[in-house]
């Protein structure tokens, strides 16, 4: 299965910067500048990790991740926010929609390690070979 990561942030410079930082990582990195675009991408192709900014014009990062949790529950959801708030933290914990919570500025190495661990965990949690048994 392809290792795909979707980075969502309304700031183009941030997307450029992170793309540069993560260019050697063994996963495919896609970037979009709004939650709405992200939803489009998710609907069209498999994305295994979503990294989203919290504050964006239009739909917020939190809402996006909640949507992802609902429709693509296997997709790991990571927050990268410029301004952490208690509200977001509470939501992350209580609703279990967020895998990791990063605040800007973060070290891209930490982010990369987290993404890779997410892939490993997804692989470890692969559903059993006989899907019929679950039904």
């Amino acid at each position: 299965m392809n290792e795909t990561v979707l980075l969502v942030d309304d700031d183009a410079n941030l997307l450029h910067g992170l793309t540069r930082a993560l260019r050697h990582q063994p996963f495919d990195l896609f970037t979009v500048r709004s939650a709405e675009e992200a939803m489009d991408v998710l609907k069209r192709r498999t994305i295994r990790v979503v990294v989203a900014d919290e504050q964006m014009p239009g739909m917020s990062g939190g809402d996006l991740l909640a949507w992802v949790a609902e429709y693509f529950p296997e997709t790991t959801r990571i927050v990268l926010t410029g301004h952490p708030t208690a509200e977001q933290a509470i939501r992350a914990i209580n609703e279990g929609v967020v895998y990791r919570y990063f605040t800007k500025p973060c070290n891209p190495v930490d982010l990369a390690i987290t993404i890779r661990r997410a892939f490993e965990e997804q692989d470890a949690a692969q559903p059993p070979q006989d899907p019929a048994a679950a039904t």
Partner: protein
Amino acid sequence: MNQKTKLPPDSLASALDGNIRGAAKSLAEMAVNALPDLVYAVDLEGRVLFWNRALAVRTGYRDEEIRSMNLEAFFPPEERPRIRIAIAKAWQEGGAGVQATILTRTGERIPYEFSSTLLRHSDGTPFALCGAARDLSERMAFESALQESEIRSRALFESSRDAMMVLGDDGRFGAGNSAALTMFGCRSEEEFCRHRPSSFSPERQPGGRSSKEAAQQHIVKAMEEGSHFFDWMHSRVDGSEFEASVLLTRIEMEGKQHIHATVRDVSVERTIQAALRANEQKLRTITECALDAIVMVDSTGKIVHWNAAASSMFGYASDEMMGKDPHKILVPPEMRETAHRGMAAFATSGTGAAVGRVRELTAIHKNGRRFPIEISISSVREESGWGAVAILRDISERRQLETSLQKQTAELTARVRELSCLERASHVFEKNDLPPHEIVAQVATLLPDAVSEPGNACARIVYHDCEIETPGFSETSLRLSVPLSIGNEQVGAIEVGCRDDAGEPSQGGFSPKERQLLEDLSGRLGRAIERYLNNAEIKSLNQKLELIFAATRTRFLLTDEDCVVRYADPETQRKYGSLTNQKCSRYLFLSQGGCPACPQKTPEARDRTVVTHFTLPLEQDRIFQRTSVPIRSHTGELLFAAVLVDVTEHKALEVKLNQARKLEAVGELAAGIAHEINTPAQFVGDNTRFLREGFQDLEQILEKLDNLLEAAKTGTVDPAMVERIRGAVEQVDAAYLREEIPQSIEQTLEGIGQIGKIVRAMKEFSHPGSKEKQAIDINRAIENTLIVSRGEWKHVAEVVTDLEAGLPPLPCFPADLNQAMLNIIVNAAHAITETESGRGTITVRSKQQNKAIAIEIEDTGPGIPENIQPRIFDHFFTTKEVGKGTGQGLTIAHNVIVEKHGGTLDFETEAGRGTMFRICLPLEGNGTEFQKLPAIESTD
């Protein structure tokens, strides 16, 4: 305030004193002033207490002079020692009589007869000597006339010695004494004896009888009867005749019958008698005119003279009394024996107990009435013994007067005692600091004097549970009690009591006057206690007040309309000295000239509270808030009560609080701002790390290129080397680096620029500012505010600015103004989120309009509902959900713009179209003349 209603003690005393004196005077005028006698009373020191009009008139002194005179001063200096003794004697013996000369003011001397009586208290202690004096000039004139005639008569008698001679049976004189020689004009006895009796007689006696015959008959008769007395006309040797009385006595001498003749020349006697008659006439005239009764008795005790005054005094006419024994008629029966004995002794000796002095006796009028008289008796020598002249005076009037005077004096004494009681009580009441039980104790000891029998009186005062009584009160049976009240509340009673052993309990209790006095005292005692209690309360209130002032560090000044200090709290007085009755400017500005901006001088200060802030000259580091309240004193005077509270800490806190509020606002922006900063921080970091890695890659290529360059120099370029270089270039993806590095540098600089911009805007936005206004570029301030608030609006609104270039610097408090604009902008962004689309436009304009700058902030939100429009500037009014807004945003904006800058803040709103807030700020002045400006015209 302490309202004093009582009279000062002096005036009270003099008022009462005046009344008493007035009463006494009016009574005295009735009785005393009618008398021609001098009437007076003196005290122990001889001070004249009372006197009548006659005394003033006769002595010539004015009343006010007499008031300060000693009795002695009315007598000539040489008489004074005697007077002093007489007065002392009177005090000792209870009265005295003395004759003395009064020296009038003009130096005239008038003889007076004084009699005096002691006036005594009921306990027998004398307190005044009352005297009366009668003018003796008249009586003295009479007595001296009487004496004169007596002396003259006696001399005449003595000088007219009887002539004696002996007549022999031969009809010749046998002998003649020297008086006979002188009488008949003979030079010697021999010559006398040569004459015959007939030669000493004229031819005929008066009546025509022959002297010879008549003489013969008288001799015969004498011879027969032994003696014979007859009148005879004699003649002297020189032929002159004279009347004589002749006594012939038959005598036996040497056995022969002789005639002894005693001849008295009666012509002299007749002359004397005539003179006497004339004298008597004169005396009678005097005595008839005299005011005193004058009665003369002869040596046998029969009345020989009875003047008109005597008739009116005793009721007997002169002819009723002549020849009668006065003692039998005029002396009361029980005294008659003594009187007769005295008279009998007097008749022979001419002296007696009654002679030469003034005595007071009782006499009986014809109608049987007894009345007191004063009598003085002078002796008159008579042939047959001693006669007497008595001068009598009816003294019943004087006695009455004395009695009434005594009564009055007693009354006066009582009133003086009451008065002094009142006065002493007044002194007690005057002492403001005496506690009630002390006042009560002191007044209780004064009370017995307030009643007429102080010796037997006791008193008790009950005041709450304090009960004070003078010794013996419990033994009293007759009591007078009046309630003691404070205000309308009865708090006790004042009582006086008299002991029964006074022996006069039957007097029927106390007089209304005493009750009145007691009630008066009770009233004043009540008021004194009340005053003390009030004072104590006021004092305690004052203390509390001053403690409160001290504890709260509150200054308090009470000033009048002219800024004159009526009261200043102790702390102020300690710092600035006594300010009372000084101008308050001395305190506030250390000058007497008045304050530059006196808050009391403004018209509104006269009827409402005015609050100002200022520093005091001696406490420059403190800020005081002065609350000036106009008050009306109870007299209607306009006063100002100024409470000065040290608000230095308060002010410092306020400054801190404002700053905190600003920080709070900044904190609210933190989310947006953090995002604005952290996002560039993220990619600046990423890019920098990328650049570091990229450089490391490029460095490898550069190293290989260096080697190639060295080889090229030596001409030993190995194709493998070139291949290695190409491999390295491929390995590091040089093409990617060449494309990305310039971009990443560009983006990094951009990110750094973003961070710098927001940090600078933050710094400028929240600059704490100074106390003074500073001129700023308002457009820059608008831009800063937009940058800082970008996080709030960037996701919901597009911001359009239309800022007029070249606006003059605007004097303002930048931090406050920024805050105001921020609040309005944030509100605008919030308003837009409420629209359906959730997105809109915020337009910010600035423009100079005359002497002001207008700033408009317009949103495309839903508009403000009409029903809440009036409340949007109210404190704590918010339409946001709980936790979203404090309701302070527009309130703060309004305060800043209107209160602090003197500008205006208003808005236009239309439902569905949006709202426009317009801020107008004056470019100069404090903005009071600032007019509302029209909206900025669109520059499109």
